[in-house]
């Protein structure tokens, strides 16, 4: 008999025992170790992927910040350039304004100097004219300038019309008449008396006459009464003379540099 049934049973039991033993000592530990390793590798791969994702995110963040920085840098550079150009333009404008102010100041000083010079020339001219006239009249006609001027002034007063005389000393609601006679030189008593007599004789009411000396007066004699002024003047002659001298000065004055920051005033 090839089959021994006791051995069959024993071998079946042996097989079951071996199956349990190998499951306990072989399959389960080995498969658990493999599973553990796979889990560990999976975790490591997940960690690595997470790290890669974090690195990619950080890189993206870095690139974004870098781009922002570049853009900010370009913006700041452009802003600085614009501000520098604006400041340059402002400085140029300020310099131009300062130059213009200096030029205007120089021009004003020049004008003042010209006016001062003109006044000096006018005063000197008048004095010279009066001195020459006085000397000429004394030497050639044996008469004084003041006397001739007073005589001429009296003749002009007498030549006034009736209407002008009435307007000169008939103010509304006033019964007295104030007359002021101003002259560039001190009138002698005889001329004052002649003038007083002439004025009193030509006016309808008795005026109170007052004499004043005004050295700066260009005219020779003037009469002021109630807003009316009557003068005998050499102002027209002097104005023509001043115009002639002014033209001469203008011709002699060199043209000023337009952008000269510190022009020197021209002295004539």
């Amino acid at each position, binding site marked *: 008999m090839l089959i*021994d049934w006791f051995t069959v049973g024993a*071998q079946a039991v042996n097989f079951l025992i071996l*199956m349990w033993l190998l499951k306990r000592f*072989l*399959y389960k530990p080995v498969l658990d170790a493999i599973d553990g390793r796979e889990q560990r590798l999976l975790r490591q791969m997940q960690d690595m992927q997470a790290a890669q994702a974090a690195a990619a995110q950080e890189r993206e963040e870095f690139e974004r910040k870098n781009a922002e920085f570049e853009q900010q840098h370009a913006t700041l550079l452009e802003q600085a350039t614009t501000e520098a150009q604006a400041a340059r333009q402002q400085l140029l404008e300020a310099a131009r304004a300062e130059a213009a102010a200096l030029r205007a100041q120089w021009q004003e000083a020049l004008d003042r100097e010209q006016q001062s010079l003109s006044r000096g020339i006018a005063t000197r001219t008048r004095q010279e004219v009066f001195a020459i006239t006085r000397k000429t009249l004394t030497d050639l006609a044996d008469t004084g300038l003041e006397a001739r001027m007073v005589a001429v002034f009296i003749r002009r007063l007498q030549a006034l019309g009736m209407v002008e005389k009435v307007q000169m000393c008939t103010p509304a609601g006033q019964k007295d008449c104030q007359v002021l006679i101003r002259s560039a030189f001190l009138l002698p008593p005889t001329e004052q008396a002649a003038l007083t007599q002439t004025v009193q004789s030509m006016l309808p009411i008795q005026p109170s006459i007052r004499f004043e000396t005004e050295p700066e007066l260009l005219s020779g004699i003037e009469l002021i009464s109630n807003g009316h002024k009557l003068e005998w003047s050499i102002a027209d002659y002097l104005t023509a003379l001043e115009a002639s001298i002014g033209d001469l000065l203008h011709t002699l004055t060199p043209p000023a540099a337009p952008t000269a920051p510190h022009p020197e005033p021209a002295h004539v």
Partner: protein
Amino acid sequence: MHLSSDELIFWQYGFAKLNLTIVTTWGLMLALTFGAWLITRKLSDDIFISRWQHVLEVIVLGVKAQIEEVGLSQSRKYISFIGTLFLFIVVSNLAAVIPGYEPPTGSLSTSTALAICVFVAVPLFGIRELGVLGYLKSYLHPTPVMLPFNIISEISRTLALAIRLFGNVMSGGMIIAILLTITPLFFPVVMNVLHLLTGMVQAYIFSILATVYIAAATRGEGA
């Protein structure tokens, strides 16, 4: 000369006996268990592992892959049974290189015991997956007319499993023994190598057929 190691009895008490087959099986069980314990007591789930752990992982994963290739996707449920079948038969057959060793698989009692284990395990796995009715319905597949043929097939394939393993292993040992008496110098060595190959192939065939039967039972496809 004896055909089976069952005939060499060391101890007997009535029906119970202790023959060479049982003793050799115990020795193999001890070697397998001790070897597995020796290696697996220092298992590591790290990336760097010992060479012996590599060997065990190759064996276990190889068996697991074979089971999955046949169609049992949940291979962990079946690896204890099928893997033990394979390892026991392989070690039994390969140990034939040891002089004086007689493989227990060369005993019809052992191969019958293994075939009976398969015969019992197949419906158990099938019932566990499909339930009792679901599994019994598989005998009516594809038509109820096939019921007797399916039952006959169930028995005959179990018988075939037992006889195939026994015949191949026993014949290999027998041929070597006969050749030793005729041409004792060179030819038995070649035959011994061939016998190792045959033993390996038989272990593979036995375990893969068991896997196919279990796969068919768990899918309800009948015998």
